[in-house]
């Protein structure tokens, strides 16, 4: 039966826990046609800005649009690469430096598809999802994150 595809939530309140990532990896143990996984983890960096040092990022999103866009990206990447599985999680709210804010996980029969798809997903997520990071500084001020 063709699996029904519809937008699903990608947002997690606060940081993404390493335990949830380990659990997600473990959940694939029963899918024995998978030969390779690729994982990208985004971590909040303690950048030094002219106005102060970053101690956290407060993420906000236009959630309804972001979920539609994420679904469109997911469908396009599934169509382009022979993937068995794809998971995307992005934080909302405050994530402190050293904590994880993005988890992208792709699996395929052979490694190349998983690796290329993961890379493409990360690039498209950063460029196309209406999500914003407010960098909280140790000087009590903030600056708006810019993606490069």
């Amino acid at each position: 039966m063709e699996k029904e595809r519809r937008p699903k939530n990608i947002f997690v309140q606060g940081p993404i826990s390493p335990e949830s990532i380990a659990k997600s990896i473990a959940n694939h143990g029963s899918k024995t046609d998978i030969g390779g996984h690729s994982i990208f983890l985004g971590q909040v960096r303690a950048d030094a800005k002219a106005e102060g040092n970053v101690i956290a990022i407060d993420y906000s999103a236009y959630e309804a649009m972001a979920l539609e866009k994420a679904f469109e990206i997911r469908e396009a990447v599934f169509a382009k690469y022979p993937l068995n599985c794809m998971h995307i999680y992005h934080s909302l709210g405050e994530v402190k430096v050293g904590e994880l804010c993005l988890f992208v996980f792709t699996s395929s029969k052979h490694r190349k598809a998983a690796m290329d798809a993961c890379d493409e997903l990360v690039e498209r997520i950063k460029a196309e999802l209406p999500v914003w990071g407010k960098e909280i500084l140790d000087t009590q001020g903030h600056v708006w994150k810019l993606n490069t």
Partner: protein
Amino acid sequence: MPTTIHIKAFGMVAEKIGTNEMSIDHIGDSVKLLDALLVKFPELKTVKFSLAINKMLVSENQKIPENAEIALLPPFSGG
């Protein structure tokens, strides 16, 4: 009864204009809406942002449907 447009603002744009949600009387197209917004909020001239109509990014002048949801979106910085 005049129809309205619902406007949501995000990130730096919401910060600049001091609100993240408002309703205004219907305006016919996206160019006219931008003009009206710049008059109402001159501070918008100093920020870069895009418009979305009903969750679709606007790239050229577009008609605004009745009761549309408009979003003012500063450059994305997720991840």
